[in-house]
């Protein structure tokens, strides 16, 4: 009872908020700053852990060794034909994700258009994509390697299968969610089928489609790396496995950091692109 009544005593609440305000005023709002701060903290803890010998430097080399190596610019692993560098590996993996996602988006768009235009086929398409969507992207790896092999096409195919189900479902859902008024008005204004898709439905689903692309990127990113670790013979995931087999733990760590950093950066880029598109269409 006492405690309940205390804040009501005159003056106190005002003083408290003033105090809080004085603190929060010194907290910077820049996201980038907080991002750097968080990473600085992780790196410091990691270095401290190695220094205290909590972490075995053979397995987890400290940042004071890893970072100079990462920045030295001539990171590579393997010999002869198998030789692969960080930059090259990253480019290969990103290209695979991009190609696979584009192909997925293309096929998903065709499925979505068919589902909307032909209600009979919608009944066939929906169960197929609904069964595809919940399959974990990595589940396609053994099948793909057995059927397609361990080349680049296999990686692209894994990405494609990873995104096809979810992308189709989200596109169909976004199309179903278009407010009926827009479609009714467009129809009464004598809009042809093609113009209906191009000028009404497409701009109307931009926000939904951008979210779908962002969401499926994570699945695609994880699937392609897992595929490269499981046997596909190039790319970032492959580089990490090679490094591990040659006991180059510094490179393993750098690979992991690269995965996290690139994943984050691409997600941010997609978010930015989405905001741009939205601004343009609203």
């Amino acid at each position: 009872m006492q405690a309940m009544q205390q804040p009501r005593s005159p003056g106190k609440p005002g003083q408290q908020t003033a105090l809080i305000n004085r603190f929060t005023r010194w907290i910077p709002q820049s996201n980038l700053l907080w991002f750097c701060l968080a990473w600085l903290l992780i790196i410091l803890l990691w270095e401290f852990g190695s220094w205290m010998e909590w972490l075995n430097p053979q397995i987890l080399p400290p940042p004071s060794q890893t970072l100079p190596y990462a920045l030295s610019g001539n990171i590579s692993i393997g010999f002869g034909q198998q030789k692969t560098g960080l930059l090259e590996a990253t480019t290969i993996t990103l290209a695979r994700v991009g190609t696979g996602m584009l192909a997925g988006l293309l096929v998903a768009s065709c499925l979505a258009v068919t589902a909307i235009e032909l209600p009979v086929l919608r009944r066939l398409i929906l169960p197929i994509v609904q069964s595809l969507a919940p399959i974990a992207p990595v589940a396609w790896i053994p099948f793909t390697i057995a059927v397609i092999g361990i080349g680049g096409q296999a990686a692209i195919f894994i990405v494609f299968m990873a995104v096809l189900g979810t992308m189709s479902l989200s596109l169909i859902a976004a199309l179903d969610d278009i407010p009926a008024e827009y479609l009714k008005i467009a129809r009464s204004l004598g809009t042809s089928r093609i113009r209906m898709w191009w000028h009404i439905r497409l701009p109307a689903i931009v926000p939904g489609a951008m979210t779908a692309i962002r969401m499926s990127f994570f699945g695609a990113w994880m699937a392609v790396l897992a595929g490269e670790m499981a046997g596909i013979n190039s790319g970032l995931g492959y580089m990490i496995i090679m490094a591990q087999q040659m006991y180059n733990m510094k490179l393993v760590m750098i690979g992991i950091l690269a995965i996290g950093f690139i994943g984050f950066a691409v997600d941010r880029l997609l978010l930015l692109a989405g905001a741009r598109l939205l601004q343009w269409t609203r």
Partner: protein
Amino acid sequence: MDTVNNMSQATTYPADNTTSSTTGARLVFSNIRKSFSDTVSVEADSLIIESGSLTVLLGRSGCGKTTLLNLAAGLDFPDQGSVSYDNQILQGPAPSTTLIFQTRNLFPWMTAEENVAFPLRNQGMAKTEALEHARQYLKQVGLESFAGHKPAQLSGGMRQRIALARTIATKPRLLLLDEPFSALDMQTRRMMQRYLLDVWKNSGVTILMITHDLHEALMLADRIALMASSPTGHIADILDIKLERPRDPEDPAFRTVQQQLDRFLEHETLLAEHDPTLESANQQA
């Protein structure tokens, strides 16, 4: 924007192509039954909407006004009976018909001028020409300076005016309005009513309009179809409103009709309150 200024622009309507009146469509609803579930249905035994008339559907929420409008637009079809448009039974979207809703009339991804140009582009007009025309139509509703704005940057009243400008551009024979001014404040609503009357007078279009607002109905309508919701949605009465135009709410004759209508609506409310189906619903709530 100065609304009074715009109004004066609207009353000095330019005598251009919009005045070349096309004849309005004639609509006949006969023996309509439309149900959505076992309990909900709408009936209209006989409602004739003459060419060039302005008919208002008035009734409480849920009595089936929007349903009838969708049937008139040929966007939905009755289970029984038919809607004919100039003696032809509607089997698809009604020809030269424009819809205006309470909101979402403009496509938010197009600018004001692109919205107005859109139906012209549908008809195959070249882009620059369509935009040129669009700006002319925007001028008629006093919004040419907002041609490049997106709907999100405009007020609700401006958006409805642009929808009206687009309607003028399409030169429809039938104009269907579903509570077009309900989201607007009183002054803007009055202004929009006058705009609508201008469009109607200058074009000869047939108008079917839904409203909840008794005053609005009396200011605009040739005929008022009163809808009731029990036992099912149906047209309870059709009144010819023979008041002189321009109408004046202070006119005793206006007031008399208003009182009559008021009494009807009150009666309809009382009926609904004693409706056993609604009563059980009330008890549950």
